[in-house]
């Protein structure tokens, strides 16, 4: 392995745009040289920001460094680029398992199995997840390349399990920065407060009624396909609107310190939770 690392390092030095950083980063990670692996992965990611394997590699290194929140973001990003990315699905399954959400872990493993039916590691982990095991699942999930699991532990809020009773439970800002509306502006979930702490949920919901339809009409008129999001910068904060389903609207509000890109990721994750919640019919 050291020889291969040396060879790959040399190749990367000669051609910094090469994809050998993926193999090199993985070898360094496996060898436990996490800081070096981190640098290699990050540099590669800067050159190839749209490469799902680069996000997957970086996520694995972050997970090994116990930076689970950022690992979640990276795997989430890999899936946004490539929805069937097996590594990212396994990685998210690992994180969900780690926080004790076996159901979500199994769902991600099922998706991974659909994408890679011959992967024995996925099948093994899935069998154990369905059986509700913990320690054994950890061993199976170790095929992910992270450490063996023991007991679930609390990690990033964004990766915590969702409670069925509350659409945004466990998501960042669930109490006052996320709002789910139906097509006519009725609140389905979440809440919103202005900077002074006043509840503005109903007022904002009323103004947003019809936005989804107008956004859909506008992009249709322009021949742009379906609308996927509406991001807006305000003087004091940012908002992001997304359609979790064709007849629902999700609003995420954050202060200006949260970059728009980060806000888009938060919104994407919240939209996923909202869609799942709507599909489960938990609001009825």
């Amino acid at each position, binding site marked *: 392995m050291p020889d291969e690392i040396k060879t790959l390092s040399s190749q990367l030095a000669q051609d910094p745009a090469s994809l050998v950083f993926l193999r090199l980063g993985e070898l360094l990670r496996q060898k436990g040289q996490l800081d070096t692996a981190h640098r290699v992965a990050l540099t590669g990611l800067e050159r190839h920001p749209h490469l799902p394997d680069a996000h997957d590699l970086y996520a694995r290194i972050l997970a090994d460094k116990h930076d689970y929140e950022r690992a979640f973001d990276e795997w989430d990003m890999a899936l946004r680029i490539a929805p069937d990315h097996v590594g990212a699905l396994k990685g998210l399954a690992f994180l969900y398992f780690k926080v004790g959400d076996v159901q979500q872990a199994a769902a991600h493993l099922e998706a991974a199995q659909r994408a890679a039916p011959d992967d024995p590691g996925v099948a093994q982990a899935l069998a154990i997840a369905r059986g509700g095991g913990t320690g054994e699942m950890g061993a199976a999930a170790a095929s992910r390349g992270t450490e063996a699991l023991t007991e679930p532990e609390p990690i990033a809020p964004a990766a915590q399990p969702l409670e069925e009773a509350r659409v945004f439970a466990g998501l960042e800002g669930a109490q006052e920065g996320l709002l789910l509306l139906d097509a006519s502006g009725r609140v389905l979930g979440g809440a919103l407060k202005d900077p002074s702490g006043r509840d503005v949920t109903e007022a904002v919901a009323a103004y*947003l009624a*019809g*936005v989804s339809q107008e956004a859909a009409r*506008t*992009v249709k008129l322009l021949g742009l396909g*379906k609308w996927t999001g509406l991001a807006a*910068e*305000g*003087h004091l904060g940012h*908002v992001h609107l997304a359609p979790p389903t064709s007849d629902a609207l999700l609003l995420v509000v954050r202060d200006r310190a949260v970059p728009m890109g980060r806000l888009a990721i938060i919104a994407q994750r919240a939209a996923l939770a909202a869609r799942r919640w709507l599909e489960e019919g938990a609001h009825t």
Partner: protein
Amino acid sequence: MTTAPAGYGKALDLITRVRGVRGAMLVSAEDGIVVAEQLMEGIKGPAVSALAASLATRLRRAMEAAGVGASLFWHLQAEQGALLVVPTPGGTLVVAVAEPDVNVGLVRLELLRAAEVVG
């Protein structure tokens, strides 16, 4: 091209020269009427401007109610492109229609520059 002050054409030039921008418009935020436009053929300027103005109004009211202030820039994302808008203090919307892979940051900057010209 709608008849409009010469400075408006210059403002729109700032935007349409960005690679991936299919057209730009100045729209009256109050009534959704096109003030000036430089659009690629096939884009229905008056209809798009009316909807953009309506969206802008709803968004402004919602954002003000949410306590984040009036919008400085908004970006409607779609599968095959985007609509990017900067409202000016004088009640005009500076609008760009763009391809999906456009440099959003660059378009935003040019929209803001154009908004300064329009006022």
